[in-house]
């Protein structure tokens, strides 16, 4: 996917001014946050489950090569082919090769964020193969001129009912309707033909189970089952970090994933797919391929951002992020929005392409609190800020300003003088009122709010005066 994360700041203003988006974000926030809070109450001990989940993920990423080899061996034993891709371009090449080998003209897809990373749809089209998104949200985006998703589990969450009504009317040439079940039925009718005619199905994978060589798929619309069982060829594309040791581990993680993502105790559909169709079986693919993708992940292993590889892509961090709730996902400019995106985009798409992202967070740590695998997202964002500063990527004025400020703060007498001057200057700016309307040193603050006036003298001045008076009176 095209990297637009460098335009974050410019994107923000447009998103704040978009009344439809603002309304949709408000609705989504209420839904995701409330439902998750309700759903985690089912668990006897949510915190202990989080600890267990984090431990499972750590166990894998601490020895990733070992677990990947185990998975590969098991998957091969079930008749699957395991392929490795070092980046998005290789993903596209491998998938196109598979498609050509099996004479594929049409591919049905269930949701795969990695195919977004790789820009796979575009590559397939260029190779004369038709990709059809079958997740309702992804379908809406695909028929709307291949708009990118704005959320990892609710890709079209930025769109309103009216947007979709207009879109379907235009694309399907049917009478405009605003009844959601009717709109859904209409999409199903279109997709049904594709499900039956596609020669290849393409899915992501929520987890890869090393013990059995299986892929676990969590979906809510049933499209995943159509994609993975009807065509003769099934290709799973997923990141190398998605492997977990056992089915038992899967059950632990599944206690957290749907609850954290959509506030469901279990998703509507949950599949564990193992191997190719056996002679005695009635359905399933005759050919199963795993395309396991690095695309920056191996470089993260063992480094400062290692914990990020625990991520199970539930989206809770963005659902609970005050910044995401305010601007939506598109402003982040790449595949993954919200706090997880502000860590992943610099790591996978380049720290120099994402100067704003690590700073676009209040470090409120709501993301860290809701993360089912306890990724310390604010710490990782802070670490990225440090890397940017070390590499001289931040604006020179900011770097000099910070150093100068720290230099002064290390010299109490100078600092006291500065604070004394600052308090008086700010008081003067307020010109007798209780507020400052325009703050020249920080214009962004006063763009959208006032800056309260200071008392006018510093604490240390007043305290020194008080001490002096007390001394004189004794």
């Amino acid at each position, binding site marked *: 996917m095209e990297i637009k994360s460098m335009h974050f*700041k410019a994107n*923000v203003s447009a998103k*704040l001014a978009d009344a439809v988006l603002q309304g949709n974000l408000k609705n989504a926030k209420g839904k995701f946050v409330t439902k998750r809070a309700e759903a985690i109450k089912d668990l006897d001990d949510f915190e202990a489950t989080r600890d267990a989940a984090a431990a499972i993920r750590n166990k894998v990423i601490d020895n990733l090569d070992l677990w990947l080899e185990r998975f590969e061996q098991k998957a091969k034993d079930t008749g699957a082919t395991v392929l490795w891709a070092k980046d998005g371009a290789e993903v596209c090449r491998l998938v196109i090769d598979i498609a050509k080998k099996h004479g594929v003209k049409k591919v049905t897809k269930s949701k795969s964020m990695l195919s977004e990373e790789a820009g796979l749809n575009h590559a397939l089209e260029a190779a004369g193969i038709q990709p059809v998104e079958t997740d309702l949200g992804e379908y809406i985006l695909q028929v709307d001129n291949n708009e990118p998703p704005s959320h990892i589990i609710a890709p079209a969450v930025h769109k309103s009912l009216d947007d979709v009504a207009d879109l379907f009317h235009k694309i399907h040439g049917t009478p405009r309707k605003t009844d959601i079940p009717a709109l859904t039925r209409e999409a199903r009718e279109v997709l049904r033909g594709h499900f039956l005619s596609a020669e290849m199905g393409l899915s992501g994978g929520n987890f890869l189970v090393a013990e059995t060589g299986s892929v676990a798929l969590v979906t809510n619309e049933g499209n995943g089952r159509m994609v993975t069982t009807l065509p003769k060829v099934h290709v799973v594309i997923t990141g190398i970090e998605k492997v977990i040791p056992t089915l038992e581990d899967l059950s632990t993680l599944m206690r957290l994933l749907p609850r954290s993502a959509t506030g469901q105790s279990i998703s509507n559909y949950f599949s564990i797919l193992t191997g190719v169709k056996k002679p005695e079986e009635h359905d399933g693919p005759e050919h199963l391929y795993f395309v396991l993708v690095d695309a920056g992940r191996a470089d993260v292993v063992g480094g400062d951002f290692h914990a990020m590889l625990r991520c199970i892509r539930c989206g809770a961090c963005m659902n609970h992020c*005050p*910044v995401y*709730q*305010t*601007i939506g996902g598109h402003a982040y400019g790449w595949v993954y929005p919200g706090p997880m995106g502000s860590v992943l985009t610099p790591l996978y798409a380049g720290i120099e392409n994402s100067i704003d992202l690590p*700073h*676009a*967070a*209040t*470090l*409120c*740590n*709501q993301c*860290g609190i809701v993360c089912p695998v306890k990724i310390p997202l604010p710490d990782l964002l*802070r670490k*990225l*800020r*440090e890397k*940017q*500063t*070390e590499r001289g990527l*931040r604006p020179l004025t*900011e770097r000099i300003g*910070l*150093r100068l*400020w*720290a*230099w002064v*703060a*290390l010299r*109490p007498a100078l*600092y006291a003088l500065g*604070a004394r001057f*600052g*308090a008086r200057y*700010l008081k003067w700016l307020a010109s007798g009122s*209780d*507020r400052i309307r325009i703050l020249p040193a*920080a214009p*962004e*603050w*006063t763009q*959208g*709010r*006032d*800056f*309260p006036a*200071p*008392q006018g*003298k*510093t*604490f*240390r*001045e*007043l*305290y*020194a005066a008080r001490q002096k008076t007390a001394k004189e009176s004794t």
Partner: protein
Amino acid sequence: MATKRVGLFVTCLVDLMRPRIGFAALKLLETAGCEVIVPEGQTCCGQPAWNSGDAPGAVALAKKTIAEFEGFDYVVAPSGSCGDHVRTEYPTLLGEEPEWRDRATALASRTYELTDFLVNVLKVDSVPGDADGLIQGSVTYHDSCTGLRSMGIKEQPRALLAKVRGVQLKEMDGCEECCGFGGTFSVKFGEVSAAIAERKCNNVLASGAKAVVGGDLGCLLNIEGKLRRMGNDTTQVLHVAEVLAGRV
């Protein structure tokens, strides 16, 4: 029991903007029987440097602060954010220098946010603001992020506010949600920050409380600034220490 020697960490924002919060904290600690010392050389804990990616600046300021405050029985700050920076981040950011890390860890265990210290260490029965009657009526409490999520400051300020006659707590929706301040975030992404603050202010206003009270001045300046820009001139914005201490 020996008198507790407390080093008051005023914080740079209180020093610059609202000295009365520092005096309120002083009064609360002294009334509770502490010997309070305000080290003259204190400046800033270094959190802005740490959060902005200037690790060397943050390390230098951490060492300075540790040297200034490690001689006291306790360090108390009228801020969850600054208090937590000393308590949680100092041992981390000095992790590669064993001697300093140990000094940081020792200081961290004796560093408290003001209301936490009053409730859990001093176990105060009453607060001076109770007799003063300076603030009367309903108040709503904004839980600042770091204090809440890192230091567990939730019940402490509420328990203390309940001791002030004439003050009633009216909880607002989303009291635990970020106000959008975020330190330098508020000036780097002013538009987003102000939009988040607007949600907070709408919740404050919907609560119908006469005042919004909190434990961190950064958040309070943000909330007050947004309320005033929204045209609200009546809702008071107060630090919890001001309500608890009464007249200073």
